[in-house]
């Protein structure tokens, strides 16, 4: 994944650095400082958008590990998130577990479900796997819906989740949430970046590129695929759990197939097989509906769209997916890389040799 020329690398450790380019070592700390300082602007709408983005990043990194790195296309990501949300609601409200126990519990249950789903999924590849996960999505959502309507008779409109507290401090407004979600999202991104630089991550890439050759290299293909399902489902459940606390309510109807498609779109638009790209993709797809809304608000009042703006928000997602798949299948991170290359190599036109990306 490192875009540095192979001729300049003298050791494997250098090839495998977390931040291979010098500019990244300057830019990333600056970005962190900027993100930490953002609440000082006092713009709560901006903080709300960033909170949504952080939640999306957590889930999308999980999906990218499974789909982008291991090559297992999953349309069932929303159901893993639903499981995270429901376990949180049940653990937190019915059993009264505190926040710091309910979230790991959701992750564990998510990982277990990922394991169970992963075993039959080993039989399928490519589009058949996508359809199998789609079927699984509907089966899981049906189970959760029937839980919601039968066992929680009082809560047919969803199960409400009270605001969490950490060490006696109740997370109430968006600013509290911002630091928590930013920390978790950053930890997830770091986890993803680290995991993909280990043996496990490289085994996933080998499986994605050609699973038969991966097997001949001595990689235990089913075991690594299962591992990808478990990690991805656990991260999805983490996102679902935090999302349940953040929104304060869990409904089975909220976890639609469209949500799973949205996450897949984040991965594609950000860049398949790139954790950094996932952050860009998650931000892009989270902000896109709000951007469409803002553009709609600029129109002269005679052309105001009213409720139909919802259709344009949805349609924009579809148009963006098609445009990226046709014209930039490697996603936003490739555009970013090209820009970075341009400025780094200026005044030369192109860099010397690209290592495999």
């Amino acid at each position, binding site marked *: 994944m490192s875009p540095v020329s192979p001729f300049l690398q003298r050791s494997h450790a250098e090839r495998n650095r977390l931040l291979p380019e010098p500019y990244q070592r300057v830019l990333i700390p600056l970005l962190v400082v900027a993100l930490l300082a953002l609440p000082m602007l006092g713009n709560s709408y901006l903080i709300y958008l960033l909170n949504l983005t952080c939640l999306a990043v957590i889930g999308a990194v999980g999906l990218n590990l499974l789909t982008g790195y291991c090559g297992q296309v999953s349309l069932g990501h929303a159901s893993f998130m639903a499981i995270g949300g429901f376990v949180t609601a049940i653990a937190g409200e019915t059993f009264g577990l505190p926040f710091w126990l309910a979230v790991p519990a959701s992750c564990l249950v998510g990982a277990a479900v990922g394991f169970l789903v992963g075993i039959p999924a080993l039989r399928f590849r490519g589009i058949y796997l996508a359809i199998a996960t789609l079927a699984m999505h509907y089966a899981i959502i049906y189970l959760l819906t029937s839980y919601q309507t039968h066992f929680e008779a009082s809560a047919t409109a969803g199960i409400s989740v009270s605001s969490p507290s950490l060490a006696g401090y109740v997370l109430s407004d968006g600013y509290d949430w911002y630091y928590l979600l930013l920390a978790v999202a950053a930890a997830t991104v770091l986890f993803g970046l680290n995991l993909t630089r280990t043996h496990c991550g490289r085994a996933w890439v080998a499986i994605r590129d050609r699973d038969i050759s991966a097997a001949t290299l001595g990689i235990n293909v089913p075991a690594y695929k299962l591992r990808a399902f478990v990690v991805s489902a656990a991260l999805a459940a983490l996102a679902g759990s935090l999302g349940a606390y953040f929104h304060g309510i869990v409904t089975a109807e909220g976890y639609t197939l469209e949500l799973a498609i949205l996450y897949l779109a984040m991965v594609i638009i950000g860049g398949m097989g790139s954790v950094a790209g996932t952050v860009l993709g998650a931000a892009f797809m989270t902000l896109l509906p709000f951007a469409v809304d803002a553009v709609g608000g600029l129109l002269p009042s005679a052309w105001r769209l009213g409720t139909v703006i919802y259709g344009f928000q949805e*349609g924009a997602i579809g148009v963006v997916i098609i445009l990226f798949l046709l014209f930039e299948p490697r996603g936003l991170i490739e555009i970013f890389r090209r820009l970075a290359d341009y400025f780094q190599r200026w005044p030369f036109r192109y860099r010397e040799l690209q290592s495999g990306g």
Partner: protein
Amino acid sequence: MEILVSIAVLGMTYALVAAGIVLVYKASRVVNFAHGEIAIVCGYLFYSAGRLWPAEGFFPAFATTLLFSLACGVVIYLVLMRRLLGEPTFVAAMVTIALAIIFKAAIVVVWRSSNLGIPMGRQILLLYPDGGALRLIDLVTLATGALCFIGLGVFFRYARLGRQFRGAAENALLASQRQVDINLILSLAWAAAVFAAAIAGVLFGSRSMLSPQSTILGLSGLTAAMVGGLDSLRGALLGGFLVAGAIYLTARLIDPALSEAVPFIILLAVMAWKPWGLFGTREELDRV
């Protein structure tokens, strides 16, 4: 009796949707996730065209829908799918998912997500003793579906173009070396598939209501196609009836909420048992 007729009619609708999915998959190995959305949009279009020329009756609306569906199929192939030949199957499938989103958005923007029933063939022919009624449209659905399947069967067996189609489906490279026009075949497959979807959408809209939620029709059709085998028209017919029977019986006898999930549960069971469906051909390793 009433149950059997209802299952047959519903099954024929699903089989028509599944037939469109199978046509495209056979020809180009693309699973079309947008099929239900296309069907419902064509249904809406038929309704609007019917409202536009109410005096002329059925034919202007039908002609509009026919022209739109053929054009739509050819455009989808020429503008989108042709660029994706040779890409992983997942990419093309993702494009159809994006198309599904766009078509669904079109329902919101153009038709304001309204629930519409196409006022056609709703005359009651027969009242069952235990409630429910046989309507004209039920018979029309069965007849149209049967006609479509017979037509497709004859086309693939006897027509020169149909044989070329089968050849192209089996091995596109060899077929093109024998001067089969692959672009023509694939455009034709898409046009025919979208037209089949349009018929299914119009029939569906005449029996019940068109709404953004009814695009689930596509997933039922996809399930039917998968159960029967993604490259088998016979399988689409059988899968349609199986799925319709399962949905109808669970909705009537067990729990209406379960009927939404039941096709997918059947699909999981069939895929665990026979990943290629009941009549599907076992595919090369890199496709499954």
